[in-house]
């Protein structure tokens, strides 16, 4: 039984109570993924599973056997930051930095959803094939990631600058 984490096969826990979040943090010491509420309400634990963003605190690790998980530690290419990571620094998309890994992973998943034309609650025309990277669309789609320092403007600016202005960036 194993799970792929940032490209490496890693072991699953014996105790089925272990969440994907605790598997990352406590078993594999990948502490970049944060625990903010442990109840799916803050988004700090967001990771990508086969490219889709989920909250890892509500995911029992065993359910994800054989799946490919990408965490914040897996986004940069060696020393080269992911363009979104760089944009978060440039646009000051964080203060304390605790919600940041979740915001970044969430935004990467979000950009893929937007690009494939998935609608959101603020999408006016549900039948449209393409959806603009508007401020409201980004804000609605990122609303599952809480930030208490109040870096919301910088976060949305960073996401917009990365994905809207540069569609070639791989989400």
């Amino acid at each position, binding site marked *: 039984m194993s799970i792929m984490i940032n490209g490496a096969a890693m072991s699953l826990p014996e105790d*089925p109570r272990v969440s994907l979040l605790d598997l990352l943090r406590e078993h594999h010491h990948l502490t970049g993924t944060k625990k903010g509420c442990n109840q*799916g309400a803050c988004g700090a634990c967001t990771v990508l599973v086969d490219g889709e963003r989920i*909250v890892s605190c509500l995911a029992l690790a065993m*359910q994800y056997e054989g799946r490919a998980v990408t965490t914040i530690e897996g986004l940069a290419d060696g020393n080269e930051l992911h363009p979104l990571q760089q944009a978060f620094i440039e646009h000051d998309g964080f203060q304390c930095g605790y919600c940041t890994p979740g915001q970044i992973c969430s935004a990467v998943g*979000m950009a893929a959803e937007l690009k494939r034309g998935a609608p959101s609650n603020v999408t006016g025309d*549900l039948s449209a094939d393409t959806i603009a990277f508007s401020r409201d669309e980004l804000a*609605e789609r990122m609303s599952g990631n809480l930030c208490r320092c109040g870096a919301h403007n910088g976060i949305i600016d960073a996401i917009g600058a990365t994905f809207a202005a540069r569609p070639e960036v791989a989400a």
Partner: protein
Amino acid sequence: MTPFSYSRASDAADALRRATAGAKYLGGGTNLVDLMRETIERPAALVDVTGLSATIEERQGGGLLIGAATRNTAVAEHRAVRERYPVLARAILAGASAQIRNMATMGGNILQRTRCTYFYDDEGSQCNKRVPGEGCDAIEGFNRIHAILGASPACVATHPSDMCVALAALDATVHLRSAGGERVLPFTDLHRLPEGRPDIETVLEPGELIVAIELPPPLATRSTYRKVRDRASYAFALVSVAATLAVEEGRVKDVRLALGGVAHKPWRAFKAEDALRGQPATEQAFRAAAEAELAHAVPLHDNAFKIELTKRTIAAVLGELAGEAA
């Protein structure tokens, strides 16, 4: 979390075999795992049913059959749902966060449990839904988010799902499977009102599994969902309205209306529908229908505002649909 065993079902029959006494089916886990962590749910075994049918099939005559393991996101994003059942797409998109919708299954969403804070307070509060007969701390407590329709002296909790409100309005059916075979139930008959046993939330038999949700052909091309809440996104509904409306020559030919955030179950507004059919599609008629539905609403200390809010939201949603029709 109380220790439990975990197994994964390969198909519905396998799931039923594994679902021994004390077991629970596990979908995306977005509600069940939280409730287990709070020790409100203490299953001895979890049977993971996320590997079961997750397809969306066209039915003859224009309906859709949605496998119960289909993720919420996949349903909201599906072309046929967006075009023919916008109320369902919008209801799903109004619920939770994108991350949670990516995890949550249709079956799991239907079976999610109330957000009553006294229900959630396993250690410190009385709740008949957790411990039948223990009492209800919500009736005299914080009950701003609680029910105004169909509540009982035992329980004033509401059902938290947005998606279910749309399913109620769409005349959906649920396909169930148990050791005894299969049955199909109108969605509006699945959830119970609390009466004396708020701990029993649905008519599901022990071990019975939701395998699919069927949507009949849409009544009208126009349908929508409006959710009123305390912040702009990612909050449970104070009140929500799902509606589909067919207007012919300025009159209501047919209408389906369901309410969220007001009752122990997704509340189909039959009284309002009856009051509307054949009436002119006007603001006055919409308001009168809303009045009819809410005539027997019972407010609690903190939630009297919901009565007026519900009426206004119903009228606004129907007005919007009628306006599109005009």
